[in-house]
């Protein structure tokens, strides 16, 4: 007897093929498109954004081809509260959030999963490129498309109701399969960036929401070297867009080292000052096996991985990197892997 599976369908190629695969495997699949914007645009412009009316139609069309029932769930309020407002608040607090990760944590595998379970479903399937091996989250075989990082915050309980049918395939294979199955989304462009910032202008979005307030850009000695229109427009590790008139004494480029929202101060310095080896994290989640061999940590989406050691005490996780990392921003997730398997994650608080 198959499972009753809710397939979250964004209108893209990945979720369409994911739904087709589980339906073909004999499960009782229902497609659901999540309407995340209260005022959706009617068409996509390029690869940016999602949740347009066109996307919901693409999802419905795919569901019709697969031959499964299809519904639209209105999650706009929850998304606004748990993802968009959280995103703005995190920037306002000088941190760098990852909204995709938050959406998985709070919407797809929380609000949607809870509702699905209440309605009698057994699991939620998505088109994420990741694998579940004996219940443990692992990297996709497609290194370039792997999305285990943005799923690394899920709890064991959440993962126990998740199905990721694409983890054993590359993106190219998924597209090919979509074409073979007659899914018209086979060559739809990948979505990038942040879905609720349709024009891709994150800084513009934030200044609209948080306003602009002039503040100083200072160097490590505290000397003012420039000014900015709002500390929320910056991310640790950022080099471009600082608009500092005076070059550094050594003539080398300067990077954002830290952001202090209360005094609205952005501190800059040389690349070497960005290098950190000790990362302090909060909110640890242990969702994987207890093995500790071949330990690495990933510090941002599609970021490098670093061999590491860690210790946990009093709800705080301290990670020691074997070699220094740069551009480590508070608010991002540190996802710990043993080999290709996620063993847990935590939220970065500070790094030194």
């Amino acid at each position: 007897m198959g499972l009753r599976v809710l397939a979250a369908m964004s209108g893209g190629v990945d979720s369409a093929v994911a739904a087709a695969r589980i339906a073909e495997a004999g499960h009782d699949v229902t497609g659901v498109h999540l309407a995340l914007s209260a005022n959706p645009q009617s068409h996509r412009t390029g690869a940016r954004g999602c949740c347009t009316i066109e996307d919901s139609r693409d999802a419905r069309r795919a569901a019709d081809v697969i031959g499964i029932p299809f519904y639209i769930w209105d999650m706009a309020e929850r998304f606004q509260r748990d993802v968009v407002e959280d995103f703005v608040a995190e920037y306002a607090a000088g941190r760098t959030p990852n909204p995709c990760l938050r959406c998985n944590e709070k919407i797809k595998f929380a609000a949607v999963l809870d509702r699905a379970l209440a309605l009698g479903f057994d699991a939620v399937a998505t088109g994420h490129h990741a694998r579940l091996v004996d219940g443990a989250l692992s990297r996709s075989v497609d290194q370039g498309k792997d999305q285990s990082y943005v799923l690394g915050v899920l709890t064991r309980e959440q993962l126990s109701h998740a199905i990721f049918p694409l983890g054993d395939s590359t993106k190219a294979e998924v597209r090919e399969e979509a074409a073979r199955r007659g899914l018209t989304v086979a060559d739809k462009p990948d979505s990038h960036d942040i879905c609720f910032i349709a024009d891709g202008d994150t800084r513009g979005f934030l200044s609209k929401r948080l306003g602009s307030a002039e503040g100083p850009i200072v160097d490590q000695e505290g000397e003012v070297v420039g000014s900015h229109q709002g500390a929320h427009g910056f991310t640790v590790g950022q080099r471009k867009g600082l608009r500092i008139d005076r070059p550094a004494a050594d003539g080398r480029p300067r990077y954002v080292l830290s952001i202090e929202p209360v005094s609205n101060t952005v501190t800059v310095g040389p690349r070497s000052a960005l290098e950190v080896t000790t990362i302090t994290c909060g909110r640890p989640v242990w969702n994987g096996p207890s093995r500790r061999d071949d330990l690495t940590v990933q510090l941002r989406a599609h970021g490098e991985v670093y061999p590491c050691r860690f210790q946990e005490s009093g709800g705080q996780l301290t990670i020691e990197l074997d070699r220094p990392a740069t551009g480590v921003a508070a608010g991002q997730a540190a996802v710990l892997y043993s080999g290709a398997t996620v063993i847990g994650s935590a939220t970065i608080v500070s790094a030194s």
Partner: protein
Amino acid sequence: MLPEAIEAMTEQLKRPGNASSLHATGRQARRVVEESRETIADALGARPSEVVFTSGGTEADNLAIKGLYWARRPRRRVLISSVEHHAVLDPAHWLGDSQGAQVELLEVDEHGRVHPDTLRNAIERDPDDVALVSVMWANNEVGTVQPVQVLAAIAHDHGIPFHTDAVQAVGQLPVSFAGSGADALTLTGHKLGGPMGAGALLLARGMTPVSVLHGGGQERDVRSGTLDAPAIAGLAAAVTAAVRDQEAVARRLTALRDDLIKRVRDAVPDVVLNGDPAGRLPGNAHFSFPGCEGDALLMLLDAKGVECSTGSACSAGVSQPSHVLLAMGADAAAARGSLRFSLGHTSTGADVDRLIEVLPAAVERARRAGLS
């Protein structure tokens, strides 16, 4: 589709011919169109010249609302009920947004009825400025039947044209165009067992709305476009059959519907029946299920083979609380927790049995999922 409509339509599909052409096959097609016109007029208490064929209800409503408004300028007031279908509501609001109209929504009571006094008072605020009045014959969501004849007479007291969207009524209720007093009446094929994409506006002589579609002027110079003779033949056959059988079907569906309502109430004691308890469409039962979201309930029932519908869906497919229920005074939660069960000529007692068998568990489950 009704078998006689399929037969009439497929018979014509084999024949080429443009009803506007002068040659023999054209004459043949024209004969089919004109006989269909006569048949429809006869079945609905209209004169043949009063039948203007359209591509369906939406086009007929647009022609009536926009066309009569434009023809009656500089009068600005457009009075429509607050429970109209979007095919009336949206053209009216468009006139308000971009054509200088002043759209006034007539209030309804808790059952969805427009009271004659409501219309009279609205008109009398400035009768000379009213371009038209439109009140639907029967509501598509909650099934409430409006006192069309009385409302039309009130409009006529002031010389104002009266349109009624009777898409839901033809074949379900006795409908006479002449008897209703309306100046314009919308009907559509697929609601009465005919083809989709074929409908008509019954338009009293002397009514000359400004065209929405300009071109060859095929239909009384009011509507242009090559006529779809096969679809019109199917429409005529369907109207004939639907009107012929209306009384018997209504009797059967009313009994079935009353049984459904009684058994739903027994199965889910706190359910609320929406719409006029007495004056409603025979095949309509519309409920609010407290604590449930209509979409969730629909999905659960669909999975058990029971097909029903929530209110109206917007273009993104996200259900909005029904404007009809909101106008009747329901709060947004009750409006979102509503479902309509429609019974038609293929519905049987076994369908009702099946619904009652699966409904309690579905309601319980939907309640657990709550209103998200």
